[in-house]
């Protein structure tokens, strides 16, 4: 629906004049820069871009973008963004949210926006902690995690965002480490291209309250061995030596080494992000080793706007009502003389 920009922008065009106030070393800077780099590549006009955020550290994001934006209230960004998009489907609408914002206070809106498949892009900054309120456990904090509100260890089992999202019928789900601007930029562009709700989970380190929460997965020296970067149509191979792969053993994914026990590359699963059946995608998002990144699911489907447009066109075609007077004076009226 969006019209293409004739202008060629640079990342500077998307930076606002506001001083960025996140903690030094926060992954949020990486997301901001990746977004500012990705936008000029998307071919959308700057005035057609809208960022809607909720509450939390990451939700300051819109203030730093030189686009339209609203820093709204806790958990409600999906609702506001849905209204923006339904009012003007020509806009490129982005939701900026965190683990608490999306899955605790805004959990209801989060699942319903995914179910409806409005053409929005949602960036979920997951740092497994509440940052802005200074360090309480969140719905993605691990059991046993010691936080300000769980000094003896967290007793509430976490959500896996991808599992929740795909359970709520997310058509597009991607995951990326917060220290990987190169792939993050690519994923943002892919999310914008995708027609329907796209959800990107950023594994975002909080340097103050949950430092190192993803270091076993995202650190440069372990990344290749602990992550698998999935690409549609390519074999699920990872590892420093590119010799590890995933196979399906019964109803479970299993890590194997190519060249050992007679395993060859042919035995390795090929990633099909476009498969409608979510079973394998669910296994992939739940996988603890390796952690799946990249586009895990990308299934084309009709968007809510398309359904509404079709229905509206049908109703208009079958109705004689053009102006309110046609309605007000129709049916059972009577004259008083």
């Amino acid at each position, binding site marked *: 629906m969006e019209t293409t920009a004739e202008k060629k922008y640079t990342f500077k065009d998307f930076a*606002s004049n*506001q001083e960025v106030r996140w903690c030094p070393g926060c992954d949020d800077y990486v997301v901001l820069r990746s977004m500012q780099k990705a936008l000029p590549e998307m071919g959308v*006009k*700057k*005035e*057609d871009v*809208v960022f*809607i955020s909720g509450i939390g550290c990451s939700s300051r994001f*819109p*203030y730093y*973008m*030189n*686009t*339209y*934006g*609203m*820093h*709204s*209230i806790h958990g*409600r960004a*999906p*609702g*506001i*963004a*849905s*209204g*923006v*998009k*339904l*009012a*003007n489907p*020509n*806009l490129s609408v982005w939701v900026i949210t965190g683990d608490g914002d999306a899955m605790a206070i805004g959990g*209801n*809106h989060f699942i*319903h926006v995914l179910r409806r498949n409005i053409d929005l892009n949602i960036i979920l900054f997951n740092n497994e902690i509440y940052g802005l309120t200074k360090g309480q456990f969140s719905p993605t904090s691990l059991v046993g995690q010691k936080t300000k509100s769980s000094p003896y260890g967290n007793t509430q089992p976490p959500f896996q965002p991808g599992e929740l999202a795909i359970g709520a019928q997310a058509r597009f789900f991607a995951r990326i480490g917060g220290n990987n601007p190169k792939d993050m930029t690519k994923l943002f562009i892919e999310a914008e291209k995708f027609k329907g709700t796209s959800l990107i989970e950023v594994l975002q380190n909080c340097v103050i309250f949950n430092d190192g929460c993803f270091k076993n997965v995202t650190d440069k020296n372990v990344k290749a061995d602990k992550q698998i970067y999935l690409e549609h149509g390519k074999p699920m191979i990872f590892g420093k030596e590119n010799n590890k792969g995933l196979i399906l053993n019964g109803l479970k994914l299993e890590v194997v080494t190519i060249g050992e026990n007679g395993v060859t590359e042919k035995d390795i699963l090929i990633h099909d992000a476009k498969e409608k059946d979510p079973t394998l995608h669910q296994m992939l998002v739940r996988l603890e080793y390796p952690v799946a990144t990249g586009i895990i699911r990308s299934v084309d489907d009709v968007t809510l706007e398309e359904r*509404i447009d079709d*229905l*509206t066109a049908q*109703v*208009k075609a079958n*109705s004689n*009502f*053009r*102006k*309110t*007077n046609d*309605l*007000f*004076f129709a*049916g*059972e*009226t*009577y*004259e*008083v*003389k």
Partner: protein
Amino acid sequence: MIPPKINDQPEVLEAVVIRFVGDSGDGMQLTGTQFSDTSAMFGNDIATFPNYPSEIRAPQGSLYGVSGFQVHIGSIEISTPGDNVDLLVAMNPAGLKTNLKAVKPGHTIIVDTDAFTKKNLEKAQYESNPLEDNSLENYRVIEVAMTSLTKEALKGVNGLDNKTITRSKNMFALGMVYWMYDRSKQHTIDFFNKKFKSKPHIIEANTRVLNAGHNFANTLELIPNSYTISPAKMSPGTYRIIMGNTATAWGFLAAAEKSGLELFLGSYPITPATDILHELVKHKHFGVKAFQAEDEIAGIASSIGASFAGDLAITTTSGPGLALKGEALGLAMMVELPLVVVDVQRGGPSTGLPTKTEQSDLLQALYGRNGESPVIVLAASTPENCFDYAYMAAKLTIEHMTPVILLTDGYIANGSAPWKIKSVAEMPEIKNNKVTEVKDNWHPYDREEATLARNWPVPGTEGLEHRIGGLEKDRVTGNVSYVPENHEYMTHIRAEKIKRVQNYIPNIETEFAESGDLLVVGWGGTYGSLHSAVKQMNKEGNTKVGLAHFNYINPLPKNTEEVFNKFKKIIVCELNDGQFAKVLNINFNGFEFIQFNKIQGLPFGKQELIQKFNQLVK
């Protein structure tokens, strides 16, 4: 028992009140609606009041499952559905038991004797059959075996099951009442033909039963105690019967057309507001975007988003929903975007009395948000003027760039009345503050001098990219600001903006007396009751009693204090525990605001008002 009046002269009255009662599945709402529509087309003024339980199909025959529909028809101006009943049609013992108190002694009750079985009498907690124990001796009771007569009338009509046959007995009752009040059956027959177009046997069945009831009354020559023949004197024009909720929905349709904006409704179902959603979803042909959200909060949130994107955005709810929307409404006020919140009030607190009426959300509407967060508050006062106040709510929110809460209530929302149809052409202009071109030194919080309304830059407009949000804004740039003096300044600006709306709303005008002994003060949906009570007092010679009924609650009309000064006593009548009286006490010093409050889920009765007012003018 007084025998039914037969072949005698009825008492000619200016107005009569008829109430149909039965099980919630008996079709009483339909019966009542048919009778009132027919009467309106005959030229009577009407007012109706449906009264139904919150259970969809409560156990048959139970006292709490009784559903009723009251209609007041007259050859004079009718402003309420009436207090006491001239004719009660009771389809079962439970309906009789729960409504008998309302019937004027000496007046008529029609009962379906077939429903007075041992089982039904037990369910209605009757120890003996009221038709046999003389307990109805002060009434004229017309006993009709309606169920058997309906079955008889339908012999030979193919394709009807037992349930359908029994359920059409309401048309027998309607046929009888049509005969008694000399009303044409044609409107109802036309209704059958339209509604059951594809089911000719249902059309035939209903028409037959309606005729059977009509003929039955004819044969018995039944006549009512009281009778009204002549049409009311109403100003010439094209009319239709409209329900309050429909009028509200149509007011927004008209405002969207007039303003040239697209209408967006984000809503979540809640009694008694849902009919507005039901109405607006139908109108995709006008480009209406109606979005049923996952909850009340998403309803208002989506509307705020649509407003940011340039639509005329509204959200509809009732008291509990307004509580849930409070935080988001504060955001709308803070970002200074247009938004109308309709609160169709019902009995509270908590879940309260969902299907009954009350005016107890006033203070919530005025103050129910965190921080200093004033909004415009309006209240419609009749089913038909819901149209005008919905329109005004839209006009004010667009022109003043601040949210408006429109209060209606279950009584006027579900009630219906004749509406002299208004065309969009005759409605006042609506200007919007949208900016389309970039000027030097432009800021999103630049304000119009007279109203203080900020401008409305809409996404998609080149050069006006900006960020808004719930954090406090710098008074000039609109950027986030924690400067102490700026916060105080902005707080005052937002309050002043609401206050200046006074310059754009009409003065309050008193009815019946401009000065005198007693000023009756009301607001919102109690207008009909207060108007008819004060009118009657004036007619009876109490010419020093006036009525000031408020539709503009925040801000109040400029001349309010001036009007209060012209009366010796002021009584504030509300269906709550005195909320408007509190507001008046805060705003106006030196007055004694006497209170008359009713919190029973029911509207005021004319007689109880007159009794109270008479005590004060003695």
